[in-house]
């Protein structure tokens, strides 16, 4: 397919076109944070750096109703109460504009869990089908970026529908999926084939700026080997303060909580982001907690991403290399370092085993 060109001064117009029929989420600045918000005329997208909060909520909202319920009293016999439930799904047609390749790839990690031959998460699936990604290739990665080490790159279009690459005067626009075609049918886009070479240079320079890739795959076996090595986990989790910033801001972290909220005779069962870093995540009604300390919990987070998930799903790591868990951690816990140490450090054998 032909490459197209979007001039800088046509960006707003194109966003306007896209937003005519859909919800378009763009990264915007609020104080020093960049977050995704619905595009409207006058909104200036921030396209020169990674957003603090990835566009995860576009397909996996921080909170959504899984269903609503309503109790009805039998007027003849007030002790008799019937209940009915209704599926609630909100899946507006959406374009996520200006996310990075890692942001879009995060959903590939979701897909293997949320949409399987045995189980389909209905609301997720509907939103996934209704959401398209116009992704911006990175021209200058940040210090915490490591997509090249988990089998991706700053211009990896997997999981995206359209890939934009910054070139002089605008963006090279390339379709990355069948579904992306409908988005690029715009008179605002002109022939961009002549800029392909420039885009390639941008890609190559971004990749080289990331530095040499390291190989996390030995961690798959090593993390299992270190399961009982609590000394290791206490050491690497010492500074963790057990908040959920790493998981909530992770494009691949997909765990959730389910709680009921009732007001009078009706209410909703809501699904909300949850975090395995929280003590409450695995706390059982009996008071027993299989993951009682932050060392146990950090072990699960790193273990799940780099060992259990690849083991279950035949290889892929549940990490997109965006580095937010590092850059936005209040105490700079560095998952790259933990994975590397898990590979390099000898495993201590527990004494009484």
């Amino acid at each position, binding site marked *: 397919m032909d490459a197209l060109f979007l001039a800088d001064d046509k960006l707003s117009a194109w966003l306007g076109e896209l937003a005519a029929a859909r919800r378009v989420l763009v990264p915007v600045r609020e104080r020093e944070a960049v977050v995704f918000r619905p595009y409207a005329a006058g909104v200036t997208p921030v396209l020169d750096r990674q957003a603090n909060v990835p566009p995860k909520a576009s397909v996996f909202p921080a909170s959504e109703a899984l269903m609503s319920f309503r109790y009805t009293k039998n007027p003849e016999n007030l002790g008799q109460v019937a209940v009915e439930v209704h599926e609630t799904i909100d899946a507006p047609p959406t374009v996520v504009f200006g996310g990075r390749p890692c942001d879009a790839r995060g959903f590939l990690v979701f897909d293997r869990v949320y949409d399987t031959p045995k189980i389909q998460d209905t609301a997720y699936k509907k939103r996934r089908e209704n959401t398209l990604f116009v992704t911006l290739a990175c021209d200058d990665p940040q210090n915490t970026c490591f997509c090249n080490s988990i089998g991706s790159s700053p211009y990896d279009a997997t999981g995206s529908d359209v890939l934009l690459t910054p070139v002089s005067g605008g963006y090279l626009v390339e379709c990355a999926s069948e579904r992306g075609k409908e988005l690029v049918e715009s008179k605002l886009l002109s022939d961009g084939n002549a800029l392909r070479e420039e885009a390639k240079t941008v890609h190559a320079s971004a990749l080289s700026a990331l530095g040499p890739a390291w190989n996390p795959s030995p961690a798959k076996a090593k993390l299992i080997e270190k399961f009982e090595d609590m000394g290791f986990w206490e050491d690497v989790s010492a*500074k963790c303060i057990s908040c959920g910033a790493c998981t*909530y801001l992770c494009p691949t972290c997909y765990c959730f909580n389910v709680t009921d909220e009732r007001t009078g005779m009706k209410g909703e069962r809501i699904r909300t982001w949850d975090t395995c870093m929280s*003590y409450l995540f695995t706390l059982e009604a009996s008071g027993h907690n299989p993951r009682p300390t932050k060392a146990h919990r950090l072990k699960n987070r790193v273990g799940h991403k780099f060992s259990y998930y690849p083991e279950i799903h035949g290889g892929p790591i549940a990490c997109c290399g965006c580095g937010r868990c590092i850059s936005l951690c209040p105490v700079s816990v*560095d998952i790259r370092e933990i994975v590397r140490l898990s590979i390099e450090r000898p495993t201590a054998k527990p004494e009484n085993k």
Partner: protein
Amino acid sequence: MSLQDELKAQIVKRLPELDVVIGWGQGYDSLHRTPLFITSEADVDKLVFDPLCVHNLSTYLTRYGSAKRIGVVVKGCDSRSVVELLQEKLIHRDKVMVFGLPCEGVADLGKVKRALAAKDLDMGRVRAASFADGDLVVTVSGQEIRLPMAEVQADKCGRCRYHNAVIHDEFAGQPITEAAPDTYADVAAFEEQTLEERMEFWREQMERCVRCYACRNACPLCVCRDYCIGQSREPNWVSQRDGLEEKFFFQMIHATHLAGRCTECGECERACPVDIPLLLLKRKLGKEILELFDYRAGTDPDAKPPLLNFKVQEDTINERGW
């Protein structure tokens, strides 16, 4: 001997009495320091102290069982949290060894980010950082940028009355003699806006909250943590929805529970991954406490925090005169 070397020598000397000493070490890039847990002399070499040592390490003191003896390195502001924890008997004096420091101020990485963004540069791409002649010198995207510390220093440092650790078992370096007045001018300025304007401001800020609880968990004094009513079902005070109501409600509970206890170290705001100006809420309560009780949290280990203390007639509240 440099302050940093003096501190290292003190830690080496006292380490045999302690299970761990918590200080700062080099983080993942040149602009970031990270909490360092020292258990051996070899670890001491990794210790760093400079204006990038932003974390208040006293938040870790309540995370160890009472059997451990913990050493903690503190700046002036951090030391007030230690005092407050002692006042509330949340830690035991004989289990904590305080390595106190004088501090001329720390950098606010939010300001560094803004200063660089103004030059179309990204803090996430800084390759080198150092301090020279009162400037933070950074190398980013091939350019060397000098940022005067006065411009990128944390706001709390500009109004600091406690540059020196107010409690310590060891003190490295020379005490700083000056102390700035804190008139709560920032709070007063904010309050010049109408109620509607202020509400609108907070609405916009809270909208970004992801309920990650970094603010709560970075706070040295928000000690409920694993049993927080923001997440508990019994009692079920706050739903898990991500509405403004829930976010605001949690922050209000967080702030009011810290009234008269908060030392305004600003860790809540620094920890926030979406830059919500949470310290302003705490400052408002700090101002009220100062005016009502003439009290500054975490300055006197023997003082009883005013809201933990019942007096029939408060000295500064003329209830009967109303």
